């Protein structure tokens, strides 16, 4: 059979965000694949340089629509380290609580997407319905469902009352029951097993070599979790297990995520019972630095990494974000090769991709064979020329 090249994306029902996978097919089998990024580069890092440290929290929060708390906490840890602020224990505990609620919400969302990608709509509907419970908790704690805005430099903005604690505990008990059902469903339902087992294989040594992070790595039996390796917030005081699985396939990633839900419930209970008395924030001066700091954070999708350089003013000189999806892309192309076209959505969804968080753009001159650096004026000129060719003139704006 002749080879056929089909584009998957940037607009495709399997993808929630724009990215392009070019697949070379022989019948139903994939013989080659390339990943093309850059459809949704928003220049967040550059924009962060023109805002104050405090304003940046709200910008960084919008890097991702799911792990928004992960990004702000990771960024704020850098800033607080530079400002030498002593964050109160209660604030750290509340941050941990929101972080784990966020992990629950993200993993339930993933479970739904996985169901949808394998055509199992009932699983999608059920897990998204249950996800509403944890979203309600987050809304009650922070005032928002997705962009919580609970972090501020030096602490958190809202406290947790005894009443809220009770409601969260009851909702967690309900979710724990539901999760038991999902564990049963995920490990026993024949079509789920047929679509996940031996699909998207990522052997242990390849996962290490390609630097996979998060549940993707842990499903290949890589013991890698920042919460254990380099505890931040109050994770060193908590008792939880590092979940790994050794099947190396999409099934393993499903099991790891569902079992992590159970661990998250455990953590949430411990944090709520631990919750020390005291203030929830300290004052931090607006001008910070000079100096530079990095911090690592275990987001629901894997290790998140932030770098902040301060120069003594109220604005950062450089902010660098490395979202977990970036680290998992190299593994995707390995997993796609030799697989079936029908498994592509499952394989891509299994890393829980977040294209927009991770997007990169680079201008590469093919003839000269080198990278070109564009300034703001060059970009503006390029944009105007690009649209002029299509008959729209923006030069007078």
């Amino acid at each position, binding site marked *: 059979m002749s080879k056929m090249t089909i584009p998957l994306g940037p607009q495709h029902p*399997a993808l929630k965000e724009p990215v392009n996978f070019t697949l070379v097919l022989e019948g139903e089998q994939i013989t080659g694949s390339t990943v093309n990024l850059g459809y949704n580069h928003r220049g967040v890092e550059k924009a962060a340089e023109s805002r104050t440290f405090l304003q940046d929290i709200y910008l960084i929060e919008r890097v991702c629509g799911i792990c928004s708390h992960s990004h702000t906490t990771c960024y704020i840890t850098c800033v607080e380290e530079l400002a030498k602020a002593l964050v109160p224990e209660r604030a750290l505990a509340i941050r941990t609580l929101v972080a784990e609620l966020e992990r629950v919400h993200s993993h339930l969302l993933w479970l739904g997407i996985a169901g949808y990608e394998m*055509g199992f709509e009932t699983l999608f509907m059920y897990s998204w319905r249950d996800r509403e419970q944890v979203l309600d908790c987050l809304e009650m704690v922070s005032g928002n469902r997705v962009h919580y805005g609970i972090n501020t430099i030096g602490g958190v903005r809202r406290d947790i009352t005894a009443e809220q604690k009770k409601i969260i505990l009851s909702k967690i008990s309900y979710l724990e029951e539901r999760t038991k059902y999902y564990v049963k469903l995920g490990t026993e339902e024949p*079509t789920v097993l047929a679509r996940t087992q031996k699909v998207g294989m990522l052997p242990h040594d390849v996962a290490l070599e390609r630097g996979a992070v998060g549940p993707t790595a842990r499903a290949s039996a890589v013991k890698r979790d920042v919460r254990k390796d380099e505890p931040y917030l109050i994770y060193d005081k908590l008792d939880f297990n590092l979940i790994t699985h050794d099947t190396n396939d999409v099934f393993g990633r499903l099991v790891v995520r569902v079992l992590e839900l159970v661990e998250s419930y455990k953590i949430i209970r411990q944090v709520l019972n631990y919750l020390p008395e005291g203030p929830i924030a300290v004052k931090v001066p607006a001008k910070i630095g000079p100096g530079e700091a990095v911090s690592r954070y275990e987001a629901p999708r894997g290790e998140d990494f932030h770098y902040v350089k301060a120069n003594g003013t109220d604005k950062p000189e450089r902010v660098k974000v490395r979202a977990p999806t970036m680290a998992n892309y190299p593994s995707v192309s390995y997993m796609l090769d030799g697989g079936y076209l029908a*498994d592509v*959505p499952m394989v891509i969804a299994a890393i829980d991709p977040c294209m927009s968080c991770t997007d990169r753009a680079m201008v590469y001159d093919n003839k000269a064979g080198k990278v070109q650096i564009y300034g703001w004026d060059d970009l503006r000129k390029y944009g105007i020329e690009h649209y002029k060719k299509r008959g729209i003139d923006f030069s007078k704006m």
Partner: protein
Amino acid sequence: MTIDPILLALIYILIFPGFIFLTVYGLFLQWFDRKISAVMQNRVGPPWYQALADIIKLLSKEVIIPDACDTVMFKILPYFAIAAVVTAALLLPIWTDALCSFQGDLVVVIYLLTIPTVTFFLAGWSSTSPYATIGSMRVLTQLFAYEVPMMLSLIGPAILAGTWNISEIAGFFTAHKPYMLAQIPAFFVALMALQGKLERVPFDIPHAKNEIVGGQFTEYSGRLLAFFYLAVDMEMVVGAGLINAIFLGATLGTAGILGAVIFLAKTLAIVFLLTLTKVLMGRVRIDQMVRFCWQILAPLSMAQILFDIFLKFRLG
């Protein structure tokens, strides 16, 4: 006053049990399927006129025909699909015995029901876009997988009844109701094969939207797409009617309005089973589907045939 036979034939073909009835009942079954699955999935589901509204909306949309495709083929295929399904409906017992009934009409109905699938394949193939091409190859692969178990499962009851006439098979099972229970494995095989024929979960592989967008219908739009969807809905009525006639004794010896009510009730029950299958499962891969049909469904229906032959000898 006697009604002109030509007028009567036209009424049969166009109104009942032909085109209009199939359209209305097909759209109703589509809504029923969607509403029931919505309730099972803890959703609200569409209002009763949704299926009709969808068709009207599609009919009013512009038809876009890709430059690269075979224009004539592309345009006439939806009508072929509908014509085949309506013809098959005339051979089924609905409110009384079938309108045209002859030895071997079972085989004719099976062949007529294969025509829509072939038009789906040709539709995808003549669209020439990569998604449609892959979709149409899957349609054909799937056809070879479910068609044989489907035929084998329908042959069992025919052997037991000793006739190839659908109405006579229905009559046999009406007279010997306990034998219906002996046909449960074949009934199950026929249901699963029908699920594959109608391209529903877990066998909606040809138009799996996460993989190949719209599959064989990717390039279709407007009126032509509406007629394809209508053909699928009608196929559901005819498929459910065929299973009703072969395995459940059709009208159970009644006629007129009571017969029609029995037909509606039993086809609704069959569609309910199809919906249940759809809700309980995810989509399988094409190789898994072929394996399932050939390793489980086909041997099961073979065993049923052997059992029926044995039973036939015992009956004498």
